[in-house]
């Protein structure tokens, strides 16, 4: 499936970006990045959600997070994003601990959670262009057009967001992935509310992202095609009942 991502728009403006951001762009020279977690544990509301969880992602890699509700998929993605500090274990990018420098880590990743971060009074185009500008796209207007095209929102570009359906809002949130490119995509249930055609567009976007060396971690209950993805079943890392009782 051909989606309209011009090759140029994945690059960064070196003048506007801190050095770390340029390095992470992973384009030229080809740079093998590795994002890994080692023996991670996460505590939410004084309850141990998972423990001894390890994973590794390298260029072009994908990680599928599965598990029943409440098994900690969202928590793990938030740990990966640096929003939550892991209670134990280490999170590393190319061997460097990321929790020490959240800002640099944040600039490497894009996070799509349950919320669509959509402002009802802005138009579709304005919403996406804001993120493109903030994330330092070379040409925010072109990046926005390409991103909207990829998720079939171009004809809605001048509509205010409040008129969109929930599936269209979801596509709006996903289109920011392309407008504000990052090396690591963290997607929490990205297909919620999407129709089959839109899921296909998302799959195509992910495939294109991985082809350029990007990484994806995705939590889902539905089938999203992720060729050669590693699966991380969160229920395997649930704390044993005895241990939970000790907490």
């Amino acid at each position: 499936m051909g989606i309209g991502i011009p090759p140029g728009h994945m690059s960064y403006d070196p003048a506007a970006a801190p050095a770390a951001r340029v390095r992470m762009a992973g384009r030229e020279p080809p740079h093998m990045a590795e994002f890994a977690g080692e023996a991670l544990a996460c505590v939410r509301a004084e309850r141990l959600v998972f423990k001894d969880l390890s994973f590794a992602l390298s260029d072009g890699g994908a990680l599928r997070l599965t598990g029943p509700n409440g098994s900690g998929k969202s928590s793990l993605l938030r740990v990966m994003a640096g929003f939550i500090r892991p209670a134990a274990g280490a999170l590393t990018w190319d061997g460097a601990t990321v929790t020490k420098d959240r800002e640099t880590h944040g600039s490497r990743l894009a996070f799509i959670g349950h919320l669509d971060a959509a402002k009802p009074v802005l138009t579709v185009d304005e919403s996406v262009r804001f993120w493109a500008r903030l994330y330092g796209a070379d040409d925010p207007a072109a990046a926005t057009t390409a991103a909207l095209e990829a998720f079939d929102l171009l004809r809605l570009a001048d509509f205010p967001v409040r008129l969109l359906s929930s599936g269209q809002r979801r596509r709006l949130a996903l289109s920011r992935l392309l407008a504000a490119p990052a090396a690591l995509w963290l997607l929490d249930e990205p297909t919620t509310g999407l129709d089959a055609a839109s899921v296909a567009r998302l799959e195509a976007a992910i495939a294109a992202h991985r082809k350029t060396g990007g990484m994806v971690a995705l939590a889902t209950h539905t089938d999203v095609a992720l060729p050669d993805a590693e699966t991380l079943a969160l229920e395997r890392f649930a704390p044993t009942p005895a241990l939970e009782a000790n907490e």
Partner: protein
Amino acid sequence: MIRALRAIAGRDLRLALRLGSDTMMVIVFFVLTVILFPFGVGSSPETLAKIAPGILWVTALLASMLALERLFAGDYEDGSLEWLSLAPVPLELVVLSKALAHWLTTGLPLVVAAPVLGLLLNLDPAGYGVLIAAMALGTPALTLIGAIGAALTLGARRGGVLLSLLVLPLYIPVLIFGVSAVDAAIFGLGAGPRLLILGGLSLFALALAPFAAAAALRQAIE
């Protein structure tokens, strides 16, 4: 950095213009409460003239607090704050940009409205220039201090009440020097030093608030 600041402040200004509610609320509150005073304390011009600087500052303080709760709440509730925190700029700059837009939409209108309301309260003509200067120098401190409170109370139930409790005591220095600057001008004393202190308070808040508020936002996102 400047580009990000312009992007965020521009977006917030655009949102404020389209919604219009915050600016209107602040101004309407300011005007209505000031109008109430002649009914409460009597309409004798001498009495009003005497207490005018105090009334104007106290009501401006309360009015500016009204809109504070929404400073980060909208972005927090719809998930934008997570994206803002991941942007390739320091979160402190995000706070600063949002505070700038917030001051332009809620602080600046107070500066503009204050002299008009001064007329209503029979403020001494000698006080107007200093009143405008003092408001212009003092309201940025209100917005910046308020940003710390707004960030700290994110996600709290009844955040508005908590916000007032946190922020109002910190507003007192601005109130004291704001009122005394206008009084000093009316009595022919030099208002200069008091204005300098007001400006100093704003600069102090400018140096401190972005860091404190950003730390609080990181907690809120967790």
